């Protein structure tokens, strides 16, 4: 368990939010603020001014012409976007070089935070949410707790991994159990230290527990929760702690949000999400690359192999490498060639040359392969077959036809364990 005083001490050592940013919030809160007044506030901080202009001219904000001063940026982009730029500029300066505990680079972290901001703003706009100005900022800052907690996650790595392996807990639950605090709670303390608006603090604190949000901040918390989960599914900066995630049913109901709207918002934001970030010069090449896990899909039907691969993609498993084999024999050859590289096997039962049951048996007898988790996807409902497969160590049986969310519910926790193991 971490002593709260230690955490508070670390929070005090974080770079402070520029005074100009605090004053900018106060200025923008006035109903009839003029461009001149806002410009004056921003120009009082030359570093912030420079960073806003650099961001305004980056591909991520997609202006068709070059912006050379704050007044021009305000005219072309409006108060809301410039405020977003100011937060992004200030936030990027507070990010440490590495997040060893979460196995994230600064570049990945910023990319993820920015993507959640963009998507939260787009969702808010699609839902006609009030005050969509703060949704980008709430999304951008949702993981600020990790700025502090990452160090402790790194030092408790073994304990966290053991808890994740032994029970089907989310990483946030394991953070609470092992560290006595999760990154949402720490985010609230960081937010208070930075004097952030209360809705932004609420979104950072409760984005993993949207059902517990106070009613006045419910919408922004739900929106950030949905945006965060969707961004993880898209593979933007997915980290160790966030693999086993799904959108809370309560958030979807409260926002009256269907899959179609999410898909529409995501696809319309995708171009912006994939634009160049991070915003600083700490090149990601220096950082260790996130390890890709290999998944082997074994089925004699190419249609089913495609369906499984597509479902894995829809489930946010796409960043991992997916290989295919058309029968057990081919699968075994692939596995034996590079036994340490595979994190998961998804196999059918009835296949020519070597069945799924025989493949699982061979793997169980092979010292190098028996650690690889196997999930069976089959239409065979024979109870004896199922018992035999379970006895051989098969982790789960999925019945055809299956839906992507069924596959995700089973696959993601297993991959989470494999990330920890690797």
């Amino acid at each position, binding site marked *: 368990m971490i002593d709260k005083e230690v955490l508070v001490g670390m929070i005090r050592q974080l770079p402070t939010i520029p005074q100009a940013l605090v004053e900018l919030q106060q200025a923008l809160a006035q109903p009839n603020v003029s461009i001149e007044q806002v410009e004056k506030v921003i120009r009082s901080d030359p570093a912030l001014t420079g960073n806003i202009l650099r961001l305004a001219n980056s591909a991520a904000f997609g202006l068709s012409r070059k912006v050379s001063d704050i007044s021009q940026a305000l005219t072309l982009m409006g108060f809301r976007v410039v405020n977003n730029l100011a937060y992004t500029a200030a936030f990027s300066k507070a990010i440490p070089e590495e997040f060893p505990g979460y196995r994230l680079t600064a570049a990945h972290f910023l990319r993820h935070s920015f993507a959640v901001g963009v998507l939260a703003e787009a969702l808010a706009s699609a839902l006609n949410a009030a005050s969509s100005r703060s949704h980008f900022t709430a999304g951008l800052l949702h993981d600020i707790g990790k700025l502090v907690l990452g160090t402790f996650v790194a030092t408790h790595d073994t304990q966290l991994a053991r808890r994740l392996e032994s029970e089907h807990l989310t990483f946030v639950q394991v953070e609470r159990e092992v560290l006595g605090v999760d990154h949402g709670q720490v985010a609230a303390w960081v937010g208070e230290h930075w004097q952030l608006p209360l809705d932004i603090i609420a979104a950072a604190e409760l984005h993993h527990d949207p059902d517990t949000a106070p009613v006045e901040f419910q919408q922004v918390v739900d929106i950030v929760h949905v945006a965060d989960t969707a961004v993880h599914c898209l593979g933007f900066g997915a980290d160790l702690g966030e693999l086993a995630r799904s959108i809370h049913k309560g958030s979807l109901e409260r926002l009256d949000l269907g899959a179609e709207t999410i898909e529409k918002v995501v696809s319309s934001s995708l171009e912006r999400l994939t634009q160049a970030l991070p915003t600083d010069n700490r090149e990601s090449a220096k950082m260790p690359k996130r390890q890709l896990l290999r998944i082997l899909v074994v089925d004699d039907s*190419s*249609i089913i192999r495609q369906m499984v691969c597509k479902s894995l993609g829809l489930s946010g498993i796409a960043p991992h490498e997916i290989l295919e084999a058309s029968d057990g024999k081919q699968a075994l050859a692939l596995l034996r060639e590079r036994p340490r590289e595979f994190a998961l096997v998804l196999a059918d039962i009835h296949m*020519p040359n070597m069945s799924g049951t025989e493949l699982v048996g061979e793997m169980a007898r092979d010292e190098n392969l028996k650690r690889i988790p196997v999930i069976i996807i089959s239409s065979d409902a024979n109870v004896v077959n199922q018992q035999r497969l379970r006895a051989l160590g098969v982790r789960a049986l999925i019945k055809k036809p299956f839906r992507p969310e069924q596959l995700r519910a089973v696959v993601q926790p297993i991959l989470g364990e494999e990330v920890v193991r690797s």
Partner: protein
Amino acid sequence: MNSEQLEQILTDTVASVLEEAIYALVDRNQPACEDEIPVVESLIAFSGIYTGTIALEVETSGILPLVNDFLGCDPEQALGLPQSDAIGELANIIAGRLLETWLPGEPNYDIGIPKVISTTHGQTRLANEPRVCVTRLRTDSGTRVAAAILLGVWT
């Protein structure tokens, strides 16, 4: 279980699999097709307390939209795929679910690998045979689908 009950199980199974796997709504109890139409047929052998074959026939002209819906892909993508594979897989799913419903809790059965053929003389046309149970349906996109349980060893 009499033959009417078995036919009901077969019809319900095929309808539910088509609904779940390709999101098709189906009209049941369709008349037998008098003309010989090209079909793709998938046959799966099963053995246990009963031995036989489960057959699924889909009219050839309806296969491409069916593959689109099965995979949730664009028509251009579906064109590049082995479409008969989809019929084999549907038959596989139907066979698994049918045996589970027909013989609940029965551990001693096994099912084989689907064999897919293109023909105009499908096995389901043997409807007058006493050992055959047939169901005919039509999807909401108009594709004719037939399925049969052929008891005994068929060649």
